[in-house]
Structures are given as C-alpha cells and as structure tokens.
C-alpha cells in the first residue's frame, strides 16, 4: 500500500470515517487497513466508508479484512460501505459474492447521503 488517508465527515448527525486507500490491498496493505479501521472503531466511529478508487489489486486477505470489519460494525449498529471499485477489485467481490454484503457507491456524495437513512 502506498498511502492511506482518513477524513472525518458529518452526515445526518453521524460521524463518518472516510478511508482513502492508495495502492495494493495485499497482505501488508490489509494489515494496515485493519489497524486503521480498528482504531476508528475504538474511537467510537461505527460508520466507515472505504474509498478503493486507487486500489488495483485486492487479495483474499483484503476481502477478509473488509467483511470481518463490516460484521463487527454491524454488531454495534454501524456499517462499512465501499466507494469507487475498480474493475479488477469489483471482479473479486462479484466472484466471491461479497458484493451482496456491501453497499457499493460510485460517487462520494451518494455514499455519504446513504448514511442519512437509519441503519
């Protein structure tokens, strides 16, 4: 992974942690992402939007980190949504059927607006 940036935004009274990932979500990258998401969760942020627009490769470890975090956030009435999936990344979500588990958005505005609705 080359870069990971976290921005906090408020939407509909909720604090949304936007994580922008740049580079591969390989094993190392997935570990870094998991660490950051856990930190956000520990700080009480249960709504996360992960922007994968600059991720060309995601391995099974990356998929695992995202689904396990989604599960953990759901237990706390939170959620994890995905933004800007590249073709190669989308393909992995589709063949593993994980696409059914996540809300995926093509624009940040739509993604943020979706947090207005009750989870």
């Amino acid at each position: 992974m080359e870069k990971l940036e976290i921005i906090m935004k408020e939407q509909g009274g909720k604090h949304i942690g936007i994580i922008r990932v740049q580079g591969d979500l390989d094993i190392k990258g997935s570990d870094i992402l998991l660490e950051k998401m856990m930190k956000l969760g520990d700080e009480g942020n249960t709504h996360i939007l992960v922007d994968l627009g600059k991720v060309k490769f995601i391995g099974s470890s990356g998929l695992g980190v995202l689904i396990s975090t989604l599960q953990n956030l759901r237990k706390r009435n939170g959620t994890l949504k995905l933004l800007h999936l590249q073709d190669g990344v989308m393909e992995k979500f589709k063949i593993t059927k994980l696409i059914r588990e996540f809300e995926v958005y093509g624009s940040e505005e739509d993604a943020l607006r979706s947090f207005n609705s009750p989870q």
Partner: protein
Amino acid sequence: MVKGQELSNTIIINSRIEEIGRVLDCVKTYMERKGYIGVKYRRLIGASYEAIANAIIHGNRKDEGKRVVVTYLDAEDQFQVRVRDEGEGFDLSSVRDPRLPENITKSYGRGIFIIRKFVDGLSFNDKGNEITLTIKK
C-alpha cells in the same frame, strides 16, 4: 505434459510475505516482454499471489528458514505457474465454498476459491505441497 516447452524459470524465496511482490514482478516483467497482457494474465498474477501467500503462511507457516519454489513455464499453448512449499501438504477437498451463507462472512477461506476461478487449470502434486496453475493462451 506441457506441449512445446519454450521456457522455464525458477525463483526460490524465503518464507517472507515481502518476497511475493519480488517474485511476481519477475513474472510480470517476463509476460510484458513477451506481450502477454490482458485480463487472463492479470488473473494469473492474482491467482499466483494467493498461491504463494498460501505456501508461505499455511505451507511453511511463515518459517523464514523454509523456502518456496516458484517456477513459471511458458509453453506453446499455455502458461503455467508452479508453487512448492516445504509443508505437510494441502487437501483440496477440504476447501469449503466461501459463497455459502455459513461461510460468506468469514474473514478467511477465499484464496483457493479465487485461484480456481482465475485459471483454466488447477492441480496439486500427490503430497499436496505443490500447486500448478495453468492458463491457456
């Protein structure tokens, strides 16, 4: 048997996750030089990543003293990547479908499934410590 063998190259690495990228860069460089581009070659690299990661993590249990041997073979009608570890071997029949409701939310168990979906052929040696991934050209 592989028909019309043209080239075979072997790379040996220690069981360190950081080594995966180095191996795949070698394979990618070769592919690009030969003009092997497109979705199926990208998928083969993705499948090879999973295979090498499995060899390091599950096969050799991250024991840096153990080696992983990666061989790529460029033949007339196919391209193969073989990955061998020093572990006890893997039973392909033990792999569960990660798409099933009881498995879908698990954080593990997708590597072999992705490999299977991304290549034309997948086989193990008898011991189960060498996987061969094949794509047709």
